[in-house]
């Protein structure tokens, strides 16, 4: 899909800082987390120390079965939670230490859906993405409008601009939410199980868009999911988790080993390599 309005949305944080000669943007170093509802109780859940790195224009998938700590890891990266140990760097800055507005200029979280209390139009919703760039009392200027329109075009949702958010379908809403995240001009795009409510066609559309957007705008995309084949097809890196432990990090071809996957997902399967070098997983029924 191309339209004359589409143009790359440059990141606001300026050029990526180079660290020691590498072009690493996101660096997760020995990060662990523990959660206990009661200070005196033993932690209910732990995420053991794990590390990985991500580059610009790269899609990283955090993969694993339910309750393995995927969402927690994402929250740590987004700065919502503070790691118990270890640090997370984005272009050399610790994400948790950033003030909320600056963090929102660099990291954009794409929700699954958005429950609005009072209905609003799609363009209003996308314009919210410009909020991190203002001070308390501000009105959007022409640049903001341009960036928001651009974001809508990039997600192929320009035609939805004037529609009410509560009157569009789930897939269309997903695009608007993504457009809002793009309007933030982030370095890092985070998605938590974005394919949950989408049908297969929409799922493929989404991942393909993410790949394209990552390439065009040089985003680093981190997706939390348990969709094996989507990950295999689109991800550049996979972080495989099981019960809070990181079992492997690497490109899909190296991570998708049959025994490993069977152990993690507790289901019989087989792994093949497609001609393009991407693994494909086939599930069997348990007999």
């Amino acid at each position, binding site marked *: 899909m191309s339209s004359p309005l589409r143009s790359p949305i440059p990141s*606001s944080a300026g050029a990526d800082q180079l660290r020691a000669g590498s072009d690493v943007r996101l660096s997760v170093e020995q990060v662990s987390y523990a959660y206990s509802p009661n200070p005196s109780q033993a932690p209910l859940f732990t995420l053991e120390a794990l590390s990985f790195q991500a580059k610009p224009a790269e899609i990283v998938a955090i993969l694993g079965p339910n309750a393995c700590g995927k969402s927690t890891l994402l929250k740590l990266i987004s700065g919502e939670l503070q790691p118990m140990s270890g640090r997370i760097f984005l272009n050399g800055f610790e994400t948790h230490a950033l003030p909320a507005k600056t963090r929102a200029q660099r990291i954009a979280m794409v929700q699954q859906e958005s429950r609005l209390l009072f209905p609003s139009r799609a363009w209003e919703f996308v314009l919210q993405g*410009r909020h991190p*760039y*203002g*001070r308390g*009392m*501000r*009105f959007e*200027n*022409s*640049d*903001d409008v341009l*960036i928001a329109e651009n974001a809508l075009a990039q997600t192929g949702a320009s035609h939805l601009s004037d529609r009410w958010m509560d009157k569009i379908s789930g897939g269309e809403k997903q695009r608007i939410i993504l457009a809002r995240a793009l309007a933030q001009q982030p370095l890092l795009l985070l998605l938590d199980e974005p394919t949950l409510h989408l049908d297969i066609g929409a799922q493929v559309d989404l991942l393909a868009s993410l790949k394209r957007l990552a390439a065009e705008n040089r985003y680093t995309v981190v997706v939390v999911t348990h969709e094996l084949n989507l990950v295999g097809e689109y991800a550049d890196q996979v972080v495989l988790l099981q019960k809070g432990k990181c079992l492997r990090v690497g490109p899909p071809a190296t991570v998708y080993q049959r025994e490993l996957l069977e152990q993690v997902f507790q289901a019989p399967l087989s792994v093949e390599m497609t001609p393009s070098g991407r693994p494909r997983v086939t599930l069997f029924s348990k007999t």
Partner: protein
Amino acid sequence: MLGKISHNSRQGRFVPRFRCKSGPRAILLVLALLFFFAEKVTAQADAANATAAPTNTHEVVDEVGRTVRVPLVPTRIVSLAPNLTETVYALGLQDRLVGDTDYCDYPPEAQKKPKVGGAINPNLEQIAALRPDLVLVTKDLNRLDTVRALDTLGIPSYSTDAAHTIDGIISSTERLAGILGAAQAGKVVGDDLHHRLTTLQERLRSVPATHVLFVVWTQPLISAGKNTFIADALRKAGAISIVDSTQDWPQMSLEEVVHLQPDYLVFAADQTGAGTRAFEALVSLPGWQLLDAVRNRHYAVISDAVNRPAPRIVSAIEDLAHQLHPASFQDLPSPGKEIVPTNSTNPARPHAALFPPPDSLSGTCGMESSCAL
């Protein structure tokens, strides 16, 4: 900042698109003008208030302890309570009354005076439009807010205290007469009332007091507490209320009343037959037949003057005494006053004449206009 649009979208400074030079400055200017205007206007209003000439006024302390500056002889009086209106008429000063409340219905001429609304929510504008030089209020009925509002408007107000005894009512009337510049009339009225009460006491001296229940409301059953002026009125009429509560309007349970078995029930009514209707309604309620007074139809109906702390209450007291102790008054022919034996089933009981002719029990009235007692 004004009139410039910054292209720095990264920081998104506050950039009004309004190119015109006004905007925030205009708002400030308008606000300043408003404040200036408001100051001028309110200063003007204050000045108007302060121009009242204090030459023929004096400071008095009213019955609730407020120090107020009132005219020596008020000529434009507004009364905010029915009992105060009655008192003004009783003192013969009704020509100076320029306004009263919707509920001031006695004497009937009072209904023709200009109205200012209710006692609890009078209309301040109406009061102000009448240009009174004194407003009469009572702690029994009016709100403190109303008094304060009058203060703010610079209208003097005099408040009587809540009445608790008949003697208190009489002395309050005399004091009010003094404030209104009619001390002589007040003395006459007060002396007359005292005289009538003393006469009544003499007649009832040897008679035991009747136990009564004064019925304010039937469902729920509400009576008057022992510290109210109604209880005092009952005492002066040779009755004693069975209610021992210190609350003003205690709710009684039927059990208590049956236990105490009053000799008579007393109703206050403003219309002919209303009291009887109340009694008949009571008779039909379950449980009330347990009362001797109900079975024997021992009930008395007096005028609702007993509810108002005004001179007329003494007439109601006399009326009640006549009904409860007819034997003590046998030797007195009272023309114009019909005594109906209360253990008959005669429903149509004519309303007792509450204006005994001047030459009966009461003394002479000293004022030129009609004797409203």
